[in-house]
């Protein structure tokens, strides 16, 4: 009984330990995430398909990182990357289907 | 160039006056977007319309009136060709006036 309880406790603690280890982002993690997001955002701007929200998220990520909140910063950077990629996908799709919308 | 635009039309004994005045009418509560500082109040305090030596309309304005204010009112006792003098003074001591005829 006691052994099982101890095992359970050990499992819980190790999972908690693992969880904390997985989610504790470092500055390096943030820099990598931000780098990817910024590259995608630049690509969108180059294609003239940037979204204003992408830029906002990037700024928010930078702000979070500046105060050491790397977990949040990585989340925001990842979101910014997703927005940038969505805007690029939008442009690619629209380039093909816009003629369908034209009044003829 | 005058800051005052004026138009007045008489019909019978009644004259309808319209006037548009060019003025920033800054309330003093708005911040300059670039500097973050408050834009100081700069608004008309007194606006007057005078006909035949008599003040027929006075407006005592403050920060609540918007930019480039427009006024419209009617009064009795004037006729076409009469002159009306419009004048304003603001909180900075600036002023302008215009004398125009009723059309």
């Amino acid at each position, binding site marked *: 009984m006691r052994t099982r309880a101890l095992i359970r406790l050990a499992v819980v603690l190790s999972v908690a330990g693992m969880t904390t280890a997985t989610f504790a982002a470092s500055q390096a993690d943030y820099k990598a995430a931000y780098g990817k997001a910024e590259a995608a955002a630049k690509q969108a701007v180059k294609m003239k*398909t940037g*979204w204003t929200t992408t830029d906002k998220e990037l700024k928010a990520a930078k702000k979070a990182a500046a105060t050491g909140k790397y977990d949040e910063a990585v989340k925001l950077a990842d979101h910014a990357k997703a927005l940038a990629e969505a805007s690029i996908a939008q442009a690619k799709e629209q380039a093909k289907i*816009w003629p369908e*919308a034209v009044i003829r | 160039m005058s800051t005052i*635009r004026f138009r007045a039309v008489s019909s019978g004994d009644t004259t309808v006056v*319209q006037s548009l005045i060019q003025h920033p009418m800054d309330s003093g509560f708005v911040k300059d977007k670039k500097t973050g500082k408050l834009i100081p109040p700069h608004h008309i305090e007194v606006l007057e319309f005078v006909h035949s030596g008599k003040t027929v309309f006075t407006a005592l304005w403050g920060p609540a009136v918007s930019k480039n204010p427009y006024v419209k009112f009617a009064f009795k006792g004037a006729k076409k060709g009469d002159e009306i003098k419009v004048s304003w003074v603001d909180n900075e001591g600036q002023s302008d006036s215009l004398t125009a005829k009723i059309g």
Partner: protein
Amino acid sequence: MLRKVFIALAIIVGTAQPLLAGNMKVDPKADFKAFREYFTKKFPNLQLNDFVNGPYSMDVGLRKQWISIEQFPPYEFAVDKGKEMMSKPFKNGKTLADCFSNKGVGIRQNYPYFDKKTGEVVTLELAVNQCLKKNGEKTLNYKKDDMAAVTAYMAFTSRGKNMDIKIPDDPRALAAYNKGEEYFYTRRGQFNFSCASCHVQLAGKHLRTEVLAPALGILNAMPIYRSNWGGMGTISRRFTSCNTQVRADALKPQDELYRDVEYYLSYMGNGLPIVGPGSRP
């Protein structure tokens, strides 16, 4: 012999009309007809010339307010300023009026035009700044104030004339027109709206508190005094703000795409009167 035939064919095909995806020919005249029919069918009780009044042609209450505000148009000050600026001498003695035919009077309806020498679409705003630059003067902010004043004056002198945009039979002009048409119908921004989403599909309907103007003749009243802005705004101002409103990054004023869409939209408004400068809610 066969080689010559192939070369001949290649030359013929190469100089033919630019083709769209799906091999559709760029046909401004056909587009124009279809565009006009769409709107006249959608609003059968509207007089053709009334489309240029945007939301006021769509809403009775707004129209009443507009008629009342037009007794003392809020853009009057801008027109006066613009007139002054046209004849104020530069440091070199020339004036803004010297850069335009007929001293800039009664010519607004010809803009934008396709410049065959540079292969570019030239809008009125661009022409103004090109003139200033050429004469060593400081260029104007494209979106408001002095640029709005100058274009307001020029529009005012063209009242009574109809929009008269020409698309020469030049593949570059047709390509610019086509790019403008593409821009108009392309969804953009996080809200995924195209210009057409609001000004074609939702024309006459409400978007929050605004009544949406129909795209037919939508530039004929520019520049405008917009109560929303508390001041004047040019075509550049409207294009950039429309972009940010759908959460799309605005392009630089007078970006090639903006000039192309202005070319397209102005052409669609051909034959309708210039009523600028206008006032809008």
